């Protein structure tokens, strides 16, 4: 268990620090010794625990700009929090999980199982069945049978009651689910118990109520269910994504085969238990586990009427290609590189908190993460200083500790990917700043990271990193901010920070993205449609608009 160094402010030391020429930025600055993006050899990085000339100039200008309103924080003294671990004794986990098909847990035809690890400890939690093509066919047949014989014939108000039951059972078992979510995925338990699990329950509760009101959803049209939906969900919000997929599908009268991600299958399998407990008719929801090949077998199954996928744009395109010409209706919720824009007239401290939430929530494993920060030039130095200070106060460590801000990276694979981007960022000449808190010895960890001195052309600005990595750019005019924000093939989300209402509406109407947060970020609600423009996807999830992908007229 890592001890988390928290900041403690001391006015004397602040003064001293301000005067001292050798004042330390507590974080770690990394800059390439030579700006070569093509150097094939190992990265020639210099890790400097101190200040670069640039950071010094930031501090100088910060003093001028912000004066006493931005006191220096001293990080060398420690404020230690006692660990506050969430107890795991009430969590019931099997050693081995089978496939949930037709209302029962069944051994896979493949005969194979794979381990799901706790990314914070690298210990195996359980073995999980790997579904092959035969298993996929079994699951789809079960869903088809349930659709033809039970679910499509059931009155909407009865379907509703089953979905309400699921919502209630999730609420009842919320603590167990949030702990498992954190163990399996690495996210801080503070987030899983306040965001993931309550929102998952809320989603079922919201869509349950639609089941007997579908004729009011689409004026002038009579919506009908599609049939069997194949749904593939990612590892960043495992149970919540399952809820986003299953709830509207069932409400609209479809049956489901769901495949959770291979690194985070456990809460979906717990959901299968809940579905049994709710006595949902067998086959209405089937949950099969496996990796890419299982997903491919599901997508390519000819008896699906609908495919819903949340994940990377790369895989999304493969799925769109596979679905082309088959008549399967498609919803894609894909990647993003969302802009977060701070104007000089923003409430700066609030904006800095918002930026931290936008990029470091769930280790940055968020498709709509505010990964590109744009700061108006006049306040850039101050904002960067404040961000660096705030960064230093974030604790990285045991996700089960209620004090933890940033948990474990979901998998070794993802950590390698993030680290590769960090290397590229430094190689391309950007200035990397990371916090300096101690990291646990085992597990997959990434310090929260800020890159400054980046350009639009940099890979770390263009590509989705899906980790706690923020790039910072500046702008002068609103038009420049809009142009830079839109300069990406993605269009999932965006954030605007200003106290001026008319500026909010100018920006929110001109940024080409599906969700815009003004003076807030990363808020979600079952009544609120979510989804992307451009290459961030097609279709919406949430709200009345989230029913459309699951009906035909």
């Amino acid at each position, binding site marked *: 268990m890592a001890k988390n160094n928290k900041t403690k402010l001391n006015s004397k030391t602040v003064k001293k620090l301000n005067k001292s020429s050798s004042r330390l930025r507590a974080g770690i600055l990394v800059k390439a010794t030579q700006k070569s993006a093509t150097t094939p050899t190992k990265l020639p990085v210099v890790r400097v625990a101190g200040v670069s000339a640039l950071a010094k100039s930031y501090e100088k200008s910060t003093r001028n700009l912000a004066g006493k309103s931005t006191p220096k924080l001293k990080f060398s003294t420690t404020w230690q929090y006692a660990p506050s671990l969430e107890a795991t004794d009430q969590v019931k986990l099997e050693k081995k999980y089978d496939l949930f098909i037709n209302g029962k847990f069944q051994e896979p035809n493949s005969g194979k199982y794979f381990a799901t690890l706790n990314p914070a400890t690298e210990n195996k939690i359980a073995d999980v069945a790997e579904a092959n093509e035969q298993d996929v066919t079994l699951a789809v047949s079960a869903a088809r049978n349930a659709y033809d014989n039970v679910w499509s014939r059931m009155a909407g108000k009865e379907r509703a009651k089953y979905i309400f039951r699921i919502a209630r059972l999730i609420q009842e078992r919320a603590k167990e689910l949030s702990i498992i979510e954190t163990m399996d995925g690495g996210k801080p338990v503070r987030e899983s118990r306040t965001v993931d699990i309550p929102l998952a329950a809320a989603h079922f509760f919201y869509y349950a109520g639609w089941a007997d009101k579908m004729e009011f959803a689409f004026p002038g049209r009579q919506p009908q269910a599609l049939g069997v939906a194949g749904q593939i969900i990612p590892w960043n919000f495992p149970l919540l994504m399952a809820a986003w997929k299953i709830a509207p599908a069932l409400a609209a009268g479809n049956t489901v085969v769901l495949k959770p991600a291979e690194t985070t299958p456990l809460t979906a399998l717990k959901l299968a238990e809940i579905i049994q407990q709710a006595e949902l008719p067998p086959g209405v929801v089937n949950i099969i586990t496996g990796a890419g090949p299982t997903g491919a077998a599901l997508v390519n199954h000819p008896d699906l009427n609908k495919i819903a996928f949340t994940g990377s744009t790369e895989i999304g395109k493969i799925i769109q290609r596979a679905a*082309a010409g088959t008549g399967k209706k498609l919803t*894609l919720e894909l990647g993003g590189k969302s802009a977060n824009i701070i104007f000089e007239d923003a409430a700066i401290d609030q904006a800095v908190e918002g930026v931290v939430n936008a990029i470091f929530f769930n280790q940055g494993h968020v498709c709509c993460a505010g990964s590109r920060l744009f700061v108006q030039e006049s306040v850039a130095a101050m904002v960067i200083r404040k961000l660096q200070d705030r960064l230093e106060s974030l604790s990285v460590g045991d996700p089960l500790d209620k004090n933890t801000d940033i948990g474990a990276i979901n998998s070794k694979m993802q950590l390698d990917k993030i680290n590769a981007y960090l290397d590229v960022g430094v190689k391309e000449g950007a200035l990397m700043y990371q916090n300096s808190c101690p990291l646990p010895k085992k597990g997959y960890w990434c310090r929260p990271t800020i890159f400054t001195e980046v350009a639009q052309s940099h890979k770390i600005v263009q590509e989705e990193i899906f980790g706690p990595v923020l790039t910072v750019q500046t702008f002068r005019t609103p038009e420049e901010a809009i142009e830079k924000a839109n300069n990406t093939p993605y269009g999932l989300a965006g954030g605007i920070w200003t106290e001026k209402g008319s500026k909010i509406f100018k920006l*929110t109407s001109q940024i080409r993205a*599906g969700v*815009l947060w003004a003076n807030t970020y990363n*808020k979600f609600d079952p009544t*609120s449609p979510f989804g992307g423009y*451009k290459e961030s996807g097609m279709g919406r999830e949430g*709200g009345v*608009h989230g029913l459309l992908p699951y009906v035909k007229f």
Partner: protein
Amino acid sequence: MENRISVQKTYKIYVDGKFPRTESGRFFEFKSPKGNMTANVSLCSRKDFRDAVVAARAAQPKWASASAYNRGQILYRIAEMLEGRRSQFVEELIWEGSSEVQAQAEVSASIDRLVYYAGWSDKYQQIFSAVNPVASSHFNFSVLEPTGVVGIICPESTALLGLVSLMAPIIVGGNSCVILSSSSKPLSSITFAEVLETSDVPAGVVNILTGMRAELVKQFAQHMDVNALAICGDENEKSLCEVEAVENLKRVRAYDIQDWALSLAQGPYFISDFQEIKTTWHPIGI
């Protein structure tokens, strides 16, 4: 007057508010079924298509920011201009193979469809947008925004009504478009461009090309700066479009409508097919 030699029209294409011939210099021959009319129609190249997309992209933001009232009036103006020139369209539709009765009906239906969508301009938003009762202390609303630049592959039959029925909901929603007219019945489409040009439709909002489907449909589907595609075609063309559209996640809407005169061939869902939902959050507090 009987000995007078009539002046024949050169059928051009319509790009960025201008009437050029194809950059390729190529043409294909149109012959009316009765043989009483021939024309050398532009055989557009993919370069023509790319030029048209550039024009459509440039025109789109300003068109989208025009008021709904303004867009509605412009749609209505197109109807006025078409009504005024109906005899010319009836003549051309007959050249394209319609009977007099069919031609009259098709022109009437086209005019009525424009009026229908003119009326939707300031109403579809209220039908499809929402204020969402989120559980946290935020004001949250979802509105429709145009998808952007839309490619339109027209049906081969009822060339005029098909074009109008696809174009009107797409532009009334603030999109711009590049249209590939019916290959077999291209005349009325180009004459319709003349109607657009005199109806205050800003240059580039609608661009109309003539040419061969086999050559151009794939280009429409592949272009990285086209956001969506409306296609009326056979299963092969539909599949081709869906496959080729993947690279920029183009939204493909395929319409299997045989009779565009039916009332089911119109409605606000033809508008919302080319709209994106944008959701905006703001905290409530002091």
